[in-house]
């Protein structure tokens, strides 16, 4: 990938004539520049809740841990499962056994070689402490079938298993056997990745150092999604925690830090002319959504929820909450991806029809009850989304109030059956994982709506047991139809993520986390 990407970047700047010759020349000089060394500082806004990758689904953790740990399987750049620590996955015809031959000679940060024992211990631990441990529910047993091979016996054929198993949400990373019995967060932070853990000082930084004995997957040509041929160049990588966006930008401009995991759009626009700084647009990055508590009035009434849906002006909500970096999109999968369900539900999207909304409110028998919108001041865009929605709902006569708390408190309150009506949530990783990732959060034991929609739950079961892609596509179309029937959740649009680096940082390519391997300092 690295070569291709660089060629593409060069190509943009060059005229068509002579581009090839020049690119080859530039490529030669650039590869010389890929020297080891340097201490890079990456900035993010919040503390990682844990460095134990499997026990958390937090983006703040993933940013760091995916440079430390690796999984058997992970997603490629185009979101297909590819082997990373495994060599392959051989699925039996009946779909009941998955055989994973492992790459040989892969070393942990403690210099021990990874074997089938470590894999089994890691996955057994994942069942217990994994933040999405239930993705191993279809697995009856994990058997060691060779020094470098594990085999999963399945309870029943689960066509979507490998995709789910490759999920980076709370990644099923491989750790040494000795850590297999440790509680969540209590492992020794040893993995097989290109950087090893050095130190975590909460509210300050997490420091990693290059793992010189990293066993790269040389069969791949370059970095590919979460896998590929990874080469660590930096001596150390420091993830510094700076909460204030303004302070982050100031530090980048002063050259004190090298990479901003996220930068506000106005700041990025301002820095576009700055030769020392390179900005990156990562879009689509997340779904911006608005979730109803279907357990309490007035949001327990489907007509009320429909009124909110048709009252909203999505363009305004998205324009303000994202500071201008957004896509208007009604779909519950990104346009152009495998499960994109087309125009279903589009009639209800970005309607901003006050009269229709008022008629629906009357039909719902709404009598001015308070509609409490839960939001937080930590995740950029959440509070703004809530405030604009409240303003728009007030305009049609809904008594909307904003309850802004901090993010951990919001996560607690939204699990309570009462005390909130609407909740702003950006789904970052779930839509990336495909339809199962999104719908899993809306169904099952603890759906975001508090109260289940039985039809949606049934459709989810149908989705995960669909044998072929076509079957699952058909099911997903039904799911999108259903989502626009009971209005438990409103899709507001797609958000983007702006990132920035110092110009001397080369090879950086925006992704689901800042990959600090195959990235180097120029000169």
């Amino acid at each position, binding site marked *: 990938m690295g070569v291709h990407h660089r060629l593409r970047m060069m190509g943009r700047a060059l005229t068509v004539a002579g581009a090839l010759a020049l690119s080859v020349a530039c490529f030669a000089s650039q590869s010389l520049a890929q020297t080891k060394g340097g201490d890079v500082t990456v900035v993010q806004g919040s503390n990682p809740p844990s460095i134990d990758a499997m026990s958390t689904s937090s983006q703040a953790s993933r940013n760091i841990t995916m440079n430390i740990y690796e999984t058997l399987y992970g997603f490629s750049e185009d979101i297909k499962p590819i082997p990373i620590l495994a060599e392959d996955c051989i699925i039996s015809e009946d779909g009941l056994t998955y055989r994973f031959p492992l790459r040989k000679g892969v070393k942990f940060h403690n210099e021990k070689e990874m074997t089938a024992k470590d894999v089994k211990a890691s996955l057994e631990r994942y069942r217990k402490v994994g933040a999405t441990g239930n993705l191993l529910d279809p697995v009856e047993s994990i058997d060691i079938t060779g020094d470098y091979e594990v085999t999963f016996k399945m309870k029943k054929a689960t066509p979507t298993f490998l995709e789910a198993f490759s999920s980076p949400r709370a990644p099923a990373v491989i750790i040494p056997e000795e850590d297999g019995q440790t509680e969540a967060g209590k492992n020794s932070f040893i993995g097989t990745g290109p950087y090893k853990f050095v130190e975590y000082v909460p509210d300050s930084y997490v420091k990693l150092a290059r793992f010189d004995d990293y066993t790269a997957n040389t069969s791949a040509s370059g970095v590919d999604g979460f896998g590929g041929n990874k080469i660590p160049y930096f001596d150390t990588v420091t993830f510094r925690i700076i909460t*204030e*966006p*303004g302070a982050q*930008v*100031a530090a980048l401009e002063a050259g004190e830090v090298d990479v901003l995991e996220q930068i*506000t759009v*106005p*700041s990025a*626009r*301002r820095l576009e002319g700055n030769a020392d700084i390179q900005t990156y647009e990562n879009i689509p990055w997340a779904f911006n959504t608005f979730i109803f508590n279907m357990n309490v009035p007035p949001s327990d009434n489907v007509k009320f929820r429909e009124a909110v849906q048709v009252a909203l002006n999505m*363009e*305004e909500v998205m*324009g*303000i909450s994202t*500071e*201008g970096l957004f896509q208007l999109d009604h779909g519950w999968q990104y346009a152009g991806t495998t499960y994109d369900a087309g125009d279903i539900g589009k009639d209800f999207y970005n309607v901003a029809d006050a009269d229709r909304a008022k008629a629906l409110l009357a039909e719902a028998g709404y009598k001015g009850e308070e509609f409490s919108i839960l939001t937080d*001041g930590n995740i950029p865009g959440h*509070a*703004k989304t809530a*405030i*604009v929605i*409240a*303003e728009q709902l007030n305009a049609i006569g809904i008594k909307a109030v*904003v*309850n*802004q708390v901090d993010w951990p408190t919001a996560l607690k309150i939204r699990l309570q059956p009462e005390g909130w009506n609407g909740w702003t949530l950006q789904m970052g990783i779930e839509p990336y994982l495909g339809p199962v990732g999104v719908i899993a959060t809306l169904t099952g034991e603890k759906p975001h709506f508090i109260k289940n929609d039985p039809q949606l739950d049934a459709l989810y079961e149908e989705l995960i047991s669909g044998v072929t892609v076509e079957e699952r596509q058909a099911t997903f179309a039904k799911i999108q139809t259903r989502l626009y029937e009971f209005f438990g959740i409103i899709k507001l649009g797609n958000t983007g993520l702006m990132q920035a680096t110092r110009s001397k940082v080369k090879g950086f390519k925006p992704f689901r986390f800042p990959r600090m391997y195959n990235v180097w300092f120029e000169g």
Partner: protein
Amino acid sequence: MVADPITTDDTISLGAEMAAARRRRWRQLAGRLLGHRSFLFGLVILAIFTFVAVFADFLAPYAPDKSDYRSILMPPAAGHWFGTDAFGRDIASRIIYGTRVSLRIGLIVVVTTGILGTLLGTLASYVRGLDGLIMRGLDGLMAFPGVLLAIALAAALGPSEINAIIALTVTFTPRTARIVRASVLVVKGMQFIEAAHAVGAGHTRIIFRYILANALSPLIVQLTFVFAVSIVAEAILSFLGVGPPPPAPSLGNIIADGRSYVQEAWWIAVFPGVAIAIAVLSLNLMGDGLRDIIDPRQRNQRDA
């Protein structure tokens, strides 16, 4: 009110003459205050702020919460004198409404602090047994740096206007009570109080008619400072997200909104900041003037 034992001792009724003398003194006081340049200056500015706060509905060119995504982060220009914020809301209108919120909070805190401080200070100094109990309790509160205590309280109570008022009242009451106690102790020892006791005046009458009336001057001066500090403290609370919750415009909230855009949109934070500075300056000038005129002793002490 000037401490003057003879005039307040109306147990010997002087009737109409007394009333006339009192009016004369008020006129003299008003004349001296208006002749005091910095007091007058402060008063005029405060009057303007009050006018703006009261008539916000007529003065503000836009509704304070009216967002407009087509005019996000617009610099100051004809349509928006002070520019717009990240919601496209008019900063001038938000400052106008924010002034209302800030002054309202400041005023309520002054009233509650004044009442509570007077009550506690008087009780402590007048009722001997309560002195240690009340003052040690207040000392405990004063052990915390003022703003820190307010932040802790507001954070514990949750962000709302009422909770901000409660937090600020709890923070400023001990200082007020201490000042009241000190001046009540001075007055209490004076001969005319003894005389009042001697002629059989009740405690209520003694406290309200004789003691408090003569101990008020330092309290009034203190309360102007409480007003000023409350406005700043409210801004601090809002800035930290524990004041009135968004989208309510308070001067501190607006600055907090502008925090992320200081480089790209300086006008969001600068204009409300200037408004706070001017409001606080005017209150301080008034406080200084009041102190100079009605409580000259305190000035001498401070200057010494």
